[in-house]
């Protein structure tokens, strides 16, 4: 590939220049990229490791002398995975790279201070990367900037959207919801889709259901729809007592106890079943639900934007690969990071006939390929970025913030604490965890 040639000649020039200037002895070693890099990835389940092995095989076609050692860490969500990696680092693992999402950026950059800014590398290889930088929505790039420095290049991401069972809608005589629907309209849909045939007070089929195991999947989309947030924009203080936040939580509570259109918080794996059987008509999730539905050959569903109240604001989270300052080979790691921006790599995200991976690719051109797979409205996964979108709030001590917040929302959704009391207590606890300086 001509890219390869360009890279090689640039390298030689660079080495020569550095030798002449006598700046960094490290650079002198870069005659030919070779060595081993340790790459930590989130081993969340089935396709994770084989997927990465395939990518590394492709990487090795270009860079046969760079060995990429996979280091796996498990977890039920990004937060837990981060814990796992932190434990690995504490365990003495010399990681060069890791796969990390929004939730970890502040932690790595500001708290642990182990992420390496990529700006110099990007400037150096600008010509090579320009095509990628143009192909990625600016909101995604900005998501990985801290204090004006770029720490990761976006690889894949997920917005929260509403999935609905088309058969159930038809049954209830409903038209598919419009893209700019409001929360009130959503409620009407949920009510029409809740069925209590034997009138015993407990519905057999619910209109909507949600999981409360993480902030990303549960309360944040509703809080964003209200125009609120749980921390200030500078991540320096919690804002859970904001009326916008409390009202959103009250709404979610009322879905269960007042309008009775939702069961209590239900784990997502159950919801993936429930939407197929029709026991629940609507759920909120990102693109990563697709593998389960695809494997089950389920196609009676479609997606639509999250309703606004009244203004829509889509929540999203994004992931990429920061280089860590514990790396003995940051330049090799950078080669891998650049490789991951290639179109061919991102195409794997969209999926193959046997296994759609599930995340949305960062490149718009590649994202178009999502139309090859269900649902019909699949391109919405990328096109939400045409409207307002906001990152999941991720202060440095994200996992602690999340743990405290979902503990209190758990009490609210169990109808055991009033929203105001819960958030007042949460605010106090959060203040010791979300702060600056």
């Amino acid at each position: 590939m001509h890219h390869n040639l360009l890279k090689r000649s640039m390298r030689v020039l660079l080495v020569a220049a550095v030798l002449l200037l006598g700046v960094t002895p490290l650079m002198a070693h870069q005659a030919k990229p070779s060595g081993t890099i340790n790459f930590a990835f989130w081993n969340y389940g089935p396709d994770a490791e084989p997927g990465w092995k395939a990518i590394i095989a492709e990487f090795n076609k270009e860079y046969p002398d760079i060995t990429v050692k996979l280091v796996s860490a498990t977890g039920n969500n990004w937060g837990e995975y981060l814990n796992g990696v932190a434990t690995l680092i504490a365990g003495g693992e010399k990681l060069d790279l890791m796969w990390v999402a929004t939730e970890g950026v502040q932690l790595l950059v500001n708290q642990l201070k182990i992420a390496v800014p990529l700006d110099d590398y990007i400037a150096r290889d600008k010509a090579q990367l320009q095509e990628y930088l143009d192909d990625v929505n600016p909101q995604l790039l900005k998501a990985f900037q801290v204090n004006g420095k770029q720490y990761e290049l976006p690889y894949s991401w997920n917005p929260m959207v509403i999935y609905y069972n088309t058969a159930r809608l038809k049954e209830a005589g409903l038209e598919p919801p419009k893209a700019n629907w409001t929360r009130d309209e959503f409620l009407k849909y949920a009510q029409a889709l809740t069925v209590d045939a034997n009138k015993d007070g407990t519905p057999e089929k619910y209109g909507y259901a949600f999981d409360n195991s993480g902030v990303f999947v549960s309360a944040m989309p509703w809080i964003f729809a209200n125009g609120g947030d749980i921390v200030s924009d500078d991540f320096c203080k919690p804002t859970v007592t904001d009326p916008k936040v409390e009202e959103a939580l009250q709404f979610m509570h009322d879905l269960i106890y007042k309008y009775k259109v939702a069961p209590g918080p239900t784990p997502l794996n159950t919801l993936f079943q429930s939407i197929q059987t029709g026991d629940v008509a609507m759920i909120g999730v990102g693109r990563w639900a697709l593998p389960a539905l695809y494997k089950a050959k389920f196609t009676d569903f479609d997606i639509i934007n999250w309703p606004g109240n009244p203004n829509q604001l889509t929540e999203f989270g994004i992931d990429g690969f920061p280089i860590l300052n514990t790396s003995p080979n940051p330049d090799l790691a950078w080669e891998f990071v650049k490789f991951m921006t290639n179109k061919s790599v991102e195409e794997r995200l969209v999926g193959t006939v046997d296994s759609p991976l599930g995340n949305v690719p960062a490149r718009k051109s590649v994202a178009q390929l999502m139309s090859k797979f269900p649902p019909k409205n699949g391109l919405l996964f990328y096109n939400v970025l045409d409207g307002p979108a906001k990152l999941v709030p991720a202060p440095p001590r994200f996992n602690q913030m999340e743990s405290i917040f979902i503990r209190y929302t758990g009490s609210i959704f169990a109808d055991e604490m009033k929203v105001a009391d819960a958030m007042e207590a949460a605010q106090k606890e959060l203040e010791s965890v979300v702060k600056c300086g």
Partner: protein
Amino acid sequence: MSADTTIRSAEDVLPKVARRPVRVHWDAILTVILLLWGSAIMIAPFAWIMQVAFSSAARAYQMPPQFFPSSITLQNFANVFQDVPYLNFIRNSFFVAAAITVGQLITCPMAAYPFARLRFPGKNVLFIVLLATLMIPVQVTIVPLFIFMRQTGLYNTHWSIILPALISPFGVFLLRQYFMTIPTELEDAARIDGASYITIFWRIIVPLSMPAMMTLGIITFVFWWNEYFTPLIMLHDPELQVLPVGLTLLQGRYSAGAVGNVAAGVTMAVIPILIVFLLLQRNIIKSIASTGLKG
């Protein structure tokens, strides 16, 4: 023939077994009914989870609860092997549990023997201290052990679990109690013949303690086969993980693991135990029963 042997009725001649009770034993019937209810509650969850494992995903939560699958599919089992390195889990669990069991069956009798038979300074104090450690919750030692394993490079290897478990105060206690019930005549005779302590230990005590050793072996193996907390902390790679932790890995990202797959994973974890249990149950239960007697 004396007069005492006159036969008075058929009952005197018939063997006892042939005699049938004349009244109906209501308490026996009531007992059986109560116990049947109890057994049903014990068995039903297993029957249900196996039914879910063998049924297609959509029918997982069908009510009224099914205990026999109406149509058998092996898809869930196939999924499990695809999703997680399940065979590794089994192999790892076996290796860890076996290594620890063998280790304890060596160190525990060795330590129990002096406490049961020998006199040495510090004997009582040492024994009490050893017993006291039974009360130390694993959480106290796990944090420093974690740090220790990390610094010796043993973190994320099976040795981080095996090494600390090679000794067992519980095992020492169990065997010491058993040794003390062995009559000393054999040993006294051997001592007179000039046998060393080591010979006595190896030739007399150990062979006579097989029941207790079996008890310890079974209890230890089952305990470590089922252990969740320590491997959760000491191991990171799924390939190295043990079965209990592996089962939770089936739950997947944001709990996206399908119910049928988890059921299949659990079923495969339970069935080998069931088989081994049925084969060894007499020994296992006898061992546990005798444990309480010495308490």
